């Protein structure tokens, strides 16, 4: 029997996170002129589309209790590969994009295999993957490659007008589609539930007869593919390939996932939370640019302080919320 309850306690972290996002945004709206506009919100999506895509892939990896540090480098590699194929070899976009996705998938699958078959630690394997992918960028070219291909330009410049002057880019559509896919995979497929089971207790998952190995490999493959897709999104976003693109993005992605309420130990969390996590990181950045008076170092300190305040608040609210739920 499932008792009717007003609120599912498992959803609490997600609700808290969303609430905090709204509060932060509200603060910006009051404090800075021009902040309260729908385009500022849409810009959050436009500017962070690639992060959303990576974060979704990362969520599934983290849900299995693993971690993927290679995401940023794979993005850089994909921008580099697409730029050089498009610019130097004049391949069309409909060939390049699938190829890039395949590269990402292959890369992820390879790491997944190392992790599963040889029982290596995900942190180290993906760290190796991170160095490798970044290194391969420089093998292609150490300089940045600009993309002037008309098809790419058209996609990049295409604005999807919503209402009034407000618009989003194609990237946003891609990102939201990936979020939908992630949520579907995680909550409505056997694969997704196995992911959660592995994160909960890998040994139990084995003893329950679940396909643990296959799922782990698939999860890294999925994350690799997401990274590659994020790479494609970045290529549309910046129209260039560059070995230094997306540096340190793995940490942003991890932070977004964790802020979104997923536990790094695996098994607990919501994929949709990662979208909110990304938005929160984005809004922190927006607040700082809108303020515009901080020096470089105060920028960093402010980001740290906001992140900290945010995490503490999140923990506090969750704690309080749990108590409330427990006593009622």
């Amino acid at each position, binding site marked *: 029997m499932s008792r009717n309850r007003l609120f599912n306690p498992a959803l609490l972290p997600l609700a808290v996170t969303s609430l905090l996002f709204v509060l932060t945004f509200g603060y910006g709206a009051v404090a800075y002129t021009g902040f309260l506009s729908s385009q500022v919100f849409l810009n959050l999506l436009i500017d962070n589309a690639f992060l959303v895509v990576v974060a979704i892939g990362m969520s599934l990896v983290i849900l299995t209790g693993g971690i993927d540090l290679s995401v940023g480098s794979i993005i850089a590699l994909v921008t580099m590969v697409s730029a050089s194929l498009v610019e130097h070899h004049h391949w069309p976009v409909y060939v390049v994009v699938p190829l890039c996705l395949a590269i990402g998938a292959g890369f992820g699958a390879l790491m997944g295999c190392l992790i599963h078959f040889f029982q290596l630690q995900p942190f*180290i394997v993906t760290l*190796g*993957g991170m160095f490798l992918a970044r290194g391969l960028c420089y093998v292609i070219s150490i300089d940045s490659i600009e993309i002037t291909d008309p098809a790419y330009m058209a996609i990049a410049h295409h604005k999807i007008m919503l209402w009034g002057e407000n618009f989003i880019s194609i990237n946003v559509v891609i990102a939201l589609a990936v979020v939908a896919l992630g949520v579907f995979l995680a909550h409505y497929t056997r694969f997704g539930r196995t992911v959660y089971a592995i994160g909960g207790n890998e040994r139990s998952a084995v003893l329950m007869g679940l396909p643990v190995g296959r799922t782990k490999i698939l999860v890294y493959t999925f994350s690799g593919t997401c990274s590659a897709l994020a790479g494609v999104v970045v290529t549309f976003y910046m129209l260039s390939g560059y070995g230094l693109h997306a540096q340190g993005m793995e940490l942003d992605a*991890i*932070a977004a996932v964790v802020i979104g309420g997923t536990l*790094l130990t695996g098994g607990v969390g919501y994929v949709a939370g990662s979208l909110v996590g990304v938005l929160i990181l984005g809004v922190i950045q927006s607040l700082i640019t809108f303020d515009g008076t901080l020096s470089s170092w105060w920028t*960093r*300190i402010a980001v740290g302080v906001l992140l900290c305040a945010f*995490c503490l608040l999140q923990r506090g609210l969750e704690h309080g919320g749990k108590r409330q739920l427990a006593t009622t």
Partner: protein
Amino acid sequence: MKAETMPQPARFALPAPLQGLTRRRLFWPCATLALLLIINGAFNPNFFSITVKNGHLYGALIDILNRAAPLMLVAIGMTPVIATRGIDISVGAVVAICGAVAASLIGGTLIIQNGTPVYVSQTPMALALLIALGAGLLCGLWNGALVAGAGMQPIVATLILMVAGRGVAQLITEGQIITVYYEPFFIIGNGFLFGLPVALYIVAAVALLMLLLVHRTALGLFIEAVGINPVAARFAGLNARRILIMVYAFCGVCAAIAGLIVASNVKSADGNNAGLLMELDAILAVTLGGTSLAGGRFSLAGSLIGALIIQSLTYAIYSLGVPPEINMVVKSVVVLTVCLMQSDSFRATLLQHLRREPR
């Protein structure tokens, strides 16, 4: 079967249970290090030569040891953190903060003393060093408080300091590189004692202290218990929080000492670049040394060897003339190979394949 018995070179006799452990744990890291050194030696004939220059030992091996000193320190600090299932990605920032604190306190003003120009320190050096170490301790305590007190996940808790800490370091240096002119400060990172770099003695002292704490007090047992099963550890009467805070604080202090060595070595403090990406190298060192990131059993000696492996690899890249474009590719390939070599199941698979080949 998980534990593979492998042929082992005969070694000095240790008490039986200890022998089995050290052998198995440290064999592969040691083998890797030896291999890297041999490769270095093969391509660079002068590699193993050590001469006496300016009254101290001079040579590639000394360089590796000396350069690895900060990394070894950070790895020593990181090991117990990882053993408690944590991680500290703020060490690089702490290195920068402490270097900046020390450098900005000491600085160096030129005065004329008895007709000769001498640089004097702005703050007594001992005090400055203490304040820098205190800053490191504070950073560590802060991390510990976030992890143990507020219950944040270690990677995010330390991410906060990683981001903000670099800002703090730059705030202290005001974005400049602070050059130190006060000679005694250089001893830490550049000095020699009995022919060996002073930094090595510092590492040895810290390592020894930690080894003593781990093996002659209950600290090692407590850390491992908390890392493996925090609930059971609490039920057995351990104060897991206090241990966590201690472990992060120690990591902060280690990073602070590393920061002093780095700053002293280049005679300046660079808030932006000092210790950049050191956290990754330190984590790598700990793992290469055989400690699992899932917490539990740890090996300090392994982490030291891990740090030496990384430094030898870096050195090899420099001295073999690897083009900078493919530095990363080389590094990644070596790291992955080393990990594979250390994986029991990989060796088992490999052996199977070898056996299947007709003789």
